[in-house]
């Protein structure tokens, strides 16, 4: 048990971290200023957290300022424990799991919220063998934490060695990694410390780029006593021993006042508070962070570092990169590195400076196509003068090399690079568009807009529906222009202003009406706003034709507009699809902008509000109509009863007399009675109809779809129907005996498994004519190439 999970420092210059518990963890995290943590709260979160399978709730219980994380709810299988003073991590860290395979983890720093604190756990992200190679890098990406501003955060990852997720260079599995809190003036930073489970010999691998001073706090995790290391392979980093700060579980602090410094901390010796159970054999050798790629092929998913993480130094490689021309820009400004995965070609470009610093960072093997990263990305000091000089370009194809050189871009923007006509000078065309449409500053001039909460609606309606004649107007409803329900929040002022309707008397008193004062009226100044419904990355499942229609279909349910939008996978593959609503507050009409990354790709129109029309005439008509309708229904009920009574009387008369005439009279009477009943029923239907329409008149539904849509989900849902393989399918056997369809202009030397050609140019072969024909026939029929 580790007590004092988070230190009780009065300042916020500390880090907090802990080990996933084998037993309950009790921790005082009040120092994180988590002033709104519920007493019991934990969520297993993935981007598909509505799938129960991935929900493994754990609990956090609170007693005073002490929080206990229960150990019996799969915490020990937790892949990520994320603790932060932020409230909503839903768009902050998202993991996508497909068929028990972790396919992506997205870290979206732009979604970093700023309000209510929260604790969440990412539980049971499954990684199986298929995805191991990818998972290596995804999990490396787990190790990238993002801290900004004044947020207090700790990011802890525990990796099950059986999952073979992340290995160090020495082949040992990473058991834990820790992201410490980073404090800086304003910049964001990345830290990837890694600590072997048995000792600290792997040291810590840190890097940051920023123009401001940086401090990084690293704690000892309870494995060793912590002393200030006496040797650092540092470059312009200074360190301070905080071992005497016994109330703060901080082993030491690293700091730099310089930009773009690289640090290899090699000794993390014991800290006095952790001496009891663990040795502190911390060796002064530096072992690099390592990720291994195996069998990187044209379906390899490559890294796509979020552009917003623009001032970071250490990156793990892998995320989504499209097959084709995919460029990854790691650092803004003068620090840059590009990678490309194009078909079966793996190419990357490093600067000369990078090469000098890490000349063995990458190992490339052509056969089998593999690419080994021996080191984390850490390439500072690339300048504008040398960034394209002496690049390392790895390719086995001179044509591809030429293509690579032609394709490389000289911009720090990574969007739209796949457009052949892309002009970096116009890179802001799309990016600015959304900000323009998102800021419509047209002010409502025909009246003033106020936001009121649903709980106050009854009070307002009662007041508006009343008739309180004044010198100026007859009813408050005369001052009502529109009344709309919106299923989401509309930005407004924070302070309530009680409006009144009407002018002033000469003595300054109000002629009209003052709205009920016990209602909060928050002024809304603009007539249109942009509502961000969020975004996600559209990933491929198979990375081949099966990901495209008709084999796989993609659609998005857009809430409020209540529309199913068909996603063109060819457009959005491995790109972010975003949904932004531009809402007209006056009318409730809306445009949903479908974004491809920052590009406005498509729009869907609709109506998102329920408009409630109320005025004095409506109210009078409403009341009168209701009353009249009710009276008419009562009269009609009476008529129906009379008609039925007449009908029964006629039948009785006919039976009594038993005369033909009597029968005829009775029949006639019954017929008339039935006619009356029918008419009465018709009248009743009509009155029902009138009553219904009258009721609707009071609360007019502008569009049924919006009204109904407002009752549905409030999130965009992406629905993907993937192609499913028959259970007998065996990929290797299929490759050996049938082969996979393709269209490649190549040589047979580059082919494998069952291979079939359309034609071949048999040049330089001294075979006879018959033999050449036989060769073509054999190859057209198909051969197996080992």
């Amino acid at each position, binding site marked *: 048990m580790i007590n004092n999970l988070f230190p009780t420092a009065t300042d916020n210059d500390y880090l907090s971290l802990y080990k996933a518990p084998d037993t309950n963890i009790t921790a005082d995290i009040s120092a994180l200023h988590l002033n709104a943590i519920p007493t019991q709260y934990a969520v297993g979160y993935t981007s598909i957290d509505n799938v129960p399978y991935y929900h493994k709730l754990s609990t956090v219980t609170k007693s005073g300022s002490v929080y206990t994380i229960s150990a019996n709810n799969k915490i020990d299988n937790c892949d990520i424990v994320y603790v932060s003073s932020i409230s909503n991590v839903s768009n902050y860290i998202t993991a996508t799991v497909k068929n028990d395979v972790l396919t992506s983890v997205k870290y979206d720093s732009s979604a970093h919220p700023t309000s209510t604190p929260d604790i969440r756990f990412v539980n049971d992200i499954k990684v199986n063998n298929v995805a191991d190679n990818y998972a290596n890098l995804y999990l490396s990406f787990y190790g990238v934490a993002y801290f900004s501003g004044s947020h207090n955060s700790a990011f802890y990852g525990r990796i099950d060695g059986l999952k073979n997720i992340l290995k160090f260079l020495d082949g040992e599995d990473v058991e834990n990694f820790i992201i410490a809190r980073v404090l800086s003036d304003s910049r964001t930073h990345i830290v990837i410390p890694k600590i072997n489970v048995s000792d600290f010999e792997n040291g810590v691998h840190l890097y940051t780029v920023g123009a401001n001073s940086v401090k990084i706090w690293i704690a000892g995790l309870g494995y060793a006593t912590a002393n200030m290391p006496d040797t650092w392979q540092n470059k312009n980093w200074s360190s301070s021993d905080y071992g005497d700060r016994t109330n703060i579980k901080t082993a030491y602090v690293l700091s730099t006042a310089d930009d773009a410094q690289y640090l290899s901390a090699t000794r993390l010796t014991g800290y006095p508070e952790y001496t009891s159970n663990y040795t502190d054999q911390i060796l002064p050798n530096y072992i690099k962070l390592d990720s291994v790629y195996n069998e990187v092929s044209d379906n390899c998913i490559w890294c796509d570092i979020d552009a917003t993480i623009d001032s970071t130094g250490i990156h793990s490689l892998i995320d989504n990169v499209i097959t084709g021309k995919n460029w990854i820009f790691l650092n803004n400004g003068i620090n840059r590195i590009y990678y490309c995965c194009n078909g079966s070609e793996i190419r990357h470009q490093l600067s000369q400076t990078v090469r000098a610093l890490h000349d063995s960072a990458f190992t490339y093997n052509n056969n089998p196509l593999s690419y080994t990263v021996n080191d984390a990305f850490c390439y500072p000091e690339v300048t504008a003068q040398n960034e394209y000089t002496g690049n390392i370009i790895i390719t086995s194809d001179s044509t591809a090399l030429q293509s690579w050189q032609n394709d490389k871009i000289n911009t720090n923007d990574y969007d739209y690079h796949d457009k052949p006509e892309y002009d970096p000078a116009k890179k802001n065309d799309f990016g600015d568009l959304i900000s323009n449409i998102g800021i419509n500053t047209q002010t409502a001039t*025909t009246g*003033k807009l106020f936001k009121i909460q649903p709980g106050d609606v009854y009070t307002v309606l009662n007041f508006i529906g009343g008739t309180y004649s004044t010198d100026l107007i007859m009813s408050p409803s005369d001052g009502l222009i529109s009344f709309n329900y919106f299923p*989401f929040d509309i930005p407004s002022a924070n302070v309530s202003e009680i409006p009144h*309707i009407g002018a002033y008397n000469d003595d300054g008193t109000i002629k009209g009406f003052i709205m009920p004062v016990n209602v909060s009226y928050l002024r809304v100044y603009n007539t249109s706003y942009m509502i961000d419904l969020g975004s996600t990355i559209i990933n491929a499942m198979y990375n081949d034709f099966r990901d495209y229609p008709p084999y796989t279909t993609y659609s998005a349910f857009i809430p409020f507009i209540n529309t199913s939008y068909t996603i063109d996978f060819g457009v959005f593959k491995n790109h972010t699809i975003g949904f932004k609503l531009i809402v007209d507050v006056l009318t409730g009409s809306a445009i949903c902008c479908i974004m491809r990354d920052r590009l406005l790709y498509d729009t869907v129109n609709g109506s998102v*509000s329920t408009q409630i029309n109320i005025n004095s005439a409506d109210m009078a008509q409403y009341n009168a109509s209701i009353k009249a309708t009710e009276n008419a229904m009562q009269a009609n009920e009476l008529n129906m009863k009379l008609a039925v009574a007449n009908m029964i009387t006629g039948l009785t008369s006919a039976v009594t007399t038993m005369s033909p005439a009597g029968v005829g009279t009775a029949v006639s009477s019954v017929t008339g009675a039935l006619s009356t009943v029918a008419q009465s029923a018709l009248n009743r239907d009509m009155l029902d109809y009138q009553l219904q329409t009258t009721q609707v008149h009071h609360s007019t539904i502008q569009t049924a779809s919006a009204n109904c849509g407002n009752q549905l989900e409030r999130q965009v849902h992406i629905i993907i129907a993937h192609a499913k393989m028959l259970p007998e399918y065996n990929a290797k056997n299929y490759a050996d005996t049938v082969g996979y369809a*393709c269209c490649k202009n190549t040589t047979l030397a580059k*082919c494998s498994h069952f291979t079939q050609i*359309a034609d071949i140019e048999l040049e330089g072969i001294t075979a006879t004519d018959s033999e050449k024909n036989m060769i073509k026939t054999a*190859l057209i029929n198909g051969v197996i*190439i080992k």
Partner: protein
Amino acid sequence: MMITLYKCTDDNAVANKTLSDPSVKTVNAYNAESILSPHFVLAYDADILTYNYISAFGRFYRIVDYVLNNNNSITLHTAIDVVLSYWDSIKNCDTTVIRTGARPTDIPDTKLPIYPNDKIFEGIRINNNIGNPCYIIQLRGADT
């Protein structure tokens, strides 16, 4: 003339077969015949029956049959393996390949055993931070 016998365990469809255990033998041509399917006569040796490939005339031949003669000789019926014979040259020729590789590509493959109707459904909910519902009231001539 001399031929070399080989053993080969690869499937006939393999282009770049692996031949092993070469054994040089003296043979006679059986008759005037095509180089595509020549016959060779050599002294009988039971060990010969364990070979199934030969090289002769700068080409490789599959042994398609053995005929035991009554003069204690054996006749090898062969057929040329043109792909293996010229593989070193063929493999570097420009060609358009329509099926190959260890996994599917972006080219639709109607042979691939995909369920015609059954699908794997995936749902991704995009969380947002749009706040709580509210009412917007627009008042004419309102002052505050």
